[in-house]
Each structure stands twice: as C-alpha cells, then as structure tokens.
C-alpha cells in the first residue's frame, strides 16, 4: 500500500510540494520560536542553579522588577534568627540607552561585595574581585566576546541620571581583572564590580537592588523567607523554591506567547494539508469508488488517505526542523560573535516538533479520509 501512497503523492508533484512547504514553514516557526523559548528556559535554570539557595529580599511591591532598598535593611535582615549572612547587590544596565536588565534582557552590571561575589562560575583568565578593589570588574564570557576584552582591558560604564527634565549620561572606564567561563546563565552577560564603587558611580549610595540572605545550616528556607518578611518592614522575600516557581511561571507566559505564534503558523500548514487532501479525495471520488468495488475495505482507504497526509506531515516536519536548525545555527553564530546565543534547538524540541507535524498531518487528514471511506461505490463509478 505504501507504494500507492508514494505514487499518489508523486502524481501531484506541485500540490504535494506546496503542501509540504506549508507544513515545513509552520514547523520552521515552531523550531525558531521554540528554540528561543528553550534557550530562555535553559538560561533561567542555570542561573537559578548558580544562585544556589539564597533567599532573595527586595522592596515590597516590586515583584519581578528591580527596585531599591536602603543599605540599612541588610543589617536588619542579618539580625533575623536563622540568617547566617546577608549582603546587598546593586543591579544596573550596562548600557542604559540599550535598555536591559533582568533575565535575558541585555548586559548587566552587578555591584557586589567582593567577598560575596558569585564564585560558582570558574575563571578562564585573571582573578576574582578582592576587598579593596577600586573600579575593577570580573566579566562574563559573552561580555568578553562581545566587546573583545582581555584581562587588563578597559570597559566603559554608562549611567543615566535625571536632572530636572533632561538626563545626563556619565561614563567611566573600568578595568577587567577576570573573565568567567561560559555558564549558559545570566552571569555570562554580567559585569561584576565592587558594590561601593557601583553605588558611587550610579549615584545610589546606601542603596541596593536586592538583598541575598543565606540560611544558617538546618534552617528551612521557606520558613526563613517568611520570617524575614515579618521581621523587616516593607520587604518581600522569596525562598529559592518560590523564586524558581515565579521564574517558571514567567517563562510559561513567554513560551506561550512565542510558541502559540509558531503553533498558529503550523496549524495553518495543517489546514493546507486538509485542503489538499479534501481536494485530492473529491478528485479521486471515482478511484475510491472503484477500489471499494474491487473489494477494498474502509481500513485500506483510510490507510491510503491518512498515510498520504501523515507522510506529507513527516516530510514537512523534517524539512522544517532542518531549515529551522540551520537558520538558528547560523543566527547563533552571528549573535555569539556579538555576545550570546539566542536559540537552543534541543533534541526534545526537535522530537516535539516532528510529532506535532505528524499529528497535524494525520489529524487534518482524518476528515478527508473519512469522506473517502463514505464514498458509495455506485455513486463514485457513475461520476464521470
């Protein structure tokens, strides 16, 4: 039967080709958009892993964004029973004109206490920050690649401050003392510098964006997060688990937006299969009628029509995955030379895309196939 399916598809080359192209285009969109969403998921996962099990404390009412907290709150947090240590971190966009800040949103500057800097990412060159460092920085691998920086090079910081109605941009060079390895996390696009210098440069003395509190051994992070909220005024705190949950929820929204656009494209591809198959079935009224008269069973005709639709789905799916894979590979190359990659076409994504293409082909082939099996042989044969 398979040879008949191939024969029938090959007989209508133009139509088969266009239908396969429609599916391929949809699956291509799924791969590109899905690849972006997968990449974000991976970055968030790795970033959260690197943040380990600190409790994140931020001003009340700024959930999800970056606010400011007075330095004095760090001391208050430290005094909460169960807190081993706490430190503040100031976050700013490396290029205020280019926007950014937050996950996946451009390059960032982290003002950190040198003794509290994130050391889970290994250095590929230079050293970590040390107490007493002035305008020195440890930069992530993407920053190093994007600005072509080596240890000892200078990087320009920019800050934008509002003065009355106009904003003035300050700049200052900072010396690179260390470069961290590629982690696949937000730290690849981060510049870590001493907190005091960052506060001074950005004009935010005695201010931090977040406070990270380490639980004492044996302390339940969930309980401690609640305790911090109760003990310190006007702050919100999230345990690593809550943080993970919140980011996952945000990711779901992001994935829904990107993937639903792609799925829409793929469904349109699927409708083209349905249209082609309906046309093909009505054109072959006589053929199916004849097959029934020759003793074909419903399952034979179903197999043939759904096989045609499914095969177009498979070929379209594979072509779409291949095209999407090639494009994202190429774009990643381009983006990597300017910073970091944007897409991750994971095996999971490829398998999902292929299954989606096949399902789409078969589902959209079902109704035409059903119509084909309903064909009365007598009516079909009188159809001249």
């Amino acid at each position, binding site marked *: *039967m398979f040879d008949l399916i191939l*024969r029938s598809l090959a*007989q209508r080359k133009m139509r088969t080709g266009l239908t396969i192209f429609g599916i391929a285009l949809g699956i291509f969109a799924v791969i590109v958009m899905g690849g972006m969403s997968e990449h974000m998921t991976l970055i968030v996962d790795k970033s959260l892993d690197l943040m380990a099990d600190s409790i994140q404390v931020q001003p009340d009412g700024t959930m999800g964004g970056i606010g400011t907290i007075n330095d004095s709150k760090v001391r208050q947090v430290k005094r909460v029973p169960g807190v081993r240590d706490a430190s503040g971190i100031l976050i700013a966009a490396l290029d205020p004109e280019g926007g950014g800040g937050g996950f996946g949103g451009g390059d960032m500057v982290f003002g950190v206490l040198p003794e509290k800097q994130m050391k889970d990412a290994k250095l590929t060159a230079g050293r970590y920050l040390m107490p007493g460092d002035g305008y020195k920085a440890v930069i992530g691998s993407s920053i190093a690649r994007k600005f072509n920086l080596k240890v000892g090079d200078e990087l320009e910081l920019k800050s934008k401050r509002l003065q009355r109605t106009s904003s003035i941009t300050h700049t200052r060079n900072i010396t690179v003392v260390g470069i961290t390895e590629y982690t696949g996390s937000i730290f690849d696009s981060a510049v870590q510098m001493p907190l005091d210098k960052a506060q001074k440069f950005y004009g935010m003395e005695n201010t931090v964006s977040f406070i990270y509190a380490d639980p004492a051994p044996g302390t339940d992070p969930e309980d401690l997060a609640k305790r911090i909220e109760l003990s310190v005024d006007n702050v919100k705190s999230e345990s690593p688990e809550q943080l993970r949950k919140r980011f996952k929820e945000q990711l779901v929204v992001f994935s829904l937006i990107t993937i639903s656009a792609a799925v829409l494209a793929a469904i349109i591809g699927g409708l083209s299969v349905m249209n082609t198959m309906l046309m093909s079935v009505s054109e072959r009224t006589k053929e199916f009628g004849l097959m*029934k*008269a*020759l*003793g074909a*069973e419903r399952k034979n005709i179903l197999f043939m029509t759904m096989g045609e639709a499914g095969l177009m789905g498979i070929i379209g799916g594979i072509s779409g995955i291949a095209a999407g894979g090639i494009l994202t590979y190429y774009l990643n190359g381009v983006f990597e030379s300017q910073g970091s990659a944007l897409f991750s076409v994971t095996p999971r994504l490829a398998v999902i895309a292929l299954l989606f293409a096949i399902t789409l082909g078969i589902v959209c082939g079902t109704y035409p196939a059903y119509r084909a099996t309903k064909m009365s*042989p*007598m009516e079909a044969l009188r159809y001249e």
Partner: protein
Amino acid sequence: MSNDGNNGNSKGPILSIRNIKKTYNQGKIPVHALDDVSFDVKKGEFISIVGPSGSGKSTLLSIIGLLDRPTEGSVFIDSMEITKAKESEAPRIRREKIGFVFQHFNLLPALTAMENVDIAMRFSGIPGGKRKERAFQLLTQIGLGDRVKHRPSEMSGGQQQRVAIARAIANNPSIILADEPTGAVDTKTREVIVELLKELSKGGQTIIVVTHDMDVARQTDRIITMRDGRIASDTGSEMK
C-alpha cells in the same frame, strides 16, 4: 482459458434472485426501479440483460454486485444470501464473489496495466510475488503480454477494457458483472471483447452483461429483457 470461476456448486444455481424490489423516492413520489424480479443463473452461463434506459437493468446489476441494497427480496450467490450481509462484510464478498467490468474501463490512470490487475488482488491479501505472477499470466492470456508496463493513456480503448477484464477475473470470482462493456469501444473492438467474454464463459466463468447493444446480446447464451423494472422476457425460461 484456464479461468474456471471458483466456489461454484455445479448442481444448484450460482446466482439466485428472489422477488427483488427497489423503490427510490424522487421527492415525494416513489419510483419503482425494480418490481418483483426473480431468476436463477447457472454456473458458466453467459447472460445479457437488455432493455431501454430506465428499465432497471443497471440497478439490478448494482444490487447483485452489492453496490446497492434492494428494498425487498434476496440475492443468493453460491447459496449465500448476500443481501443479508452486513456492511462490513460487503468488501470481502465483492472480492471473493464478484468481478466488475465497467463501460469506461475505470483503470487507475497512474498505474500500469500490470499494476491495475495487481490492485484487485492486493485487497485480498495475496503476497506481492504471487500477484505479479498472476497479473502477468492473465495479461499474457488476453494478448497484452507486451503491454504490461503501459499506462491506460498509452493503450487503446479495447486494450484498456481487456486489462479491466483481466482485473475482474484476477481473484477468481464466482460471477463477472459487466455494465455496458462495449459501450465505449468501436465495432471491431466490440467483437474482440465479446469473444474474450465468450471464451471465459466456455472456461466455466459465469458472466452477466448489461447492454443496449443487441448484437452483443445475441452472442450470449441467454437474454433477459427488462421493461419498467420487471422482466419482460427471459430466453432462459423459454428454453425450459
């Protein structure tokens, strides 16, 4: 010709039609396409059904071929009442008991002569090697051994109809039902087709032909004439 039509019980009739009625509703007006039609067919008989348009001959053929159901009455093939068969059993009965030949040949245009004969056997689950062997043997028998790889568009009407006949006998059916088999060919080709059918009949194959053409009908063993959904005359019953 070695085809002998299987399943035949040489004593009883191979086909029995009992009090067949078929009524269509044209709007609110009932139309009696067939009205109390009964006859028997013996194995190996070559029968023609003739009559004016609308006399019910094609409806009768469709009912025998299980392409249509009667309003009343029964059809028995090899003593099996096919009119009682479920819809799901119809394909198997068509495969095993009936071979169709149509006026417009109805070959699949994308397939070669060989594949067109082969397709009838596919649905019976005959393995590929055997199907090819039989298709080639049948095409050679009907004188188209050199046309096996030709597509319908590369063959004359007569050649196409011979391929269709080969396809009809491929599964060794009990009966061949031919609906105007010479309706779309010239006089010379008509003789070739009729000769082929006669030869098959001599080999023991039961054949029922619906035709307008009295020249064809006269060459068959028995002529059933239909008029207004009834049998007007049957040379077989006259012979009895």
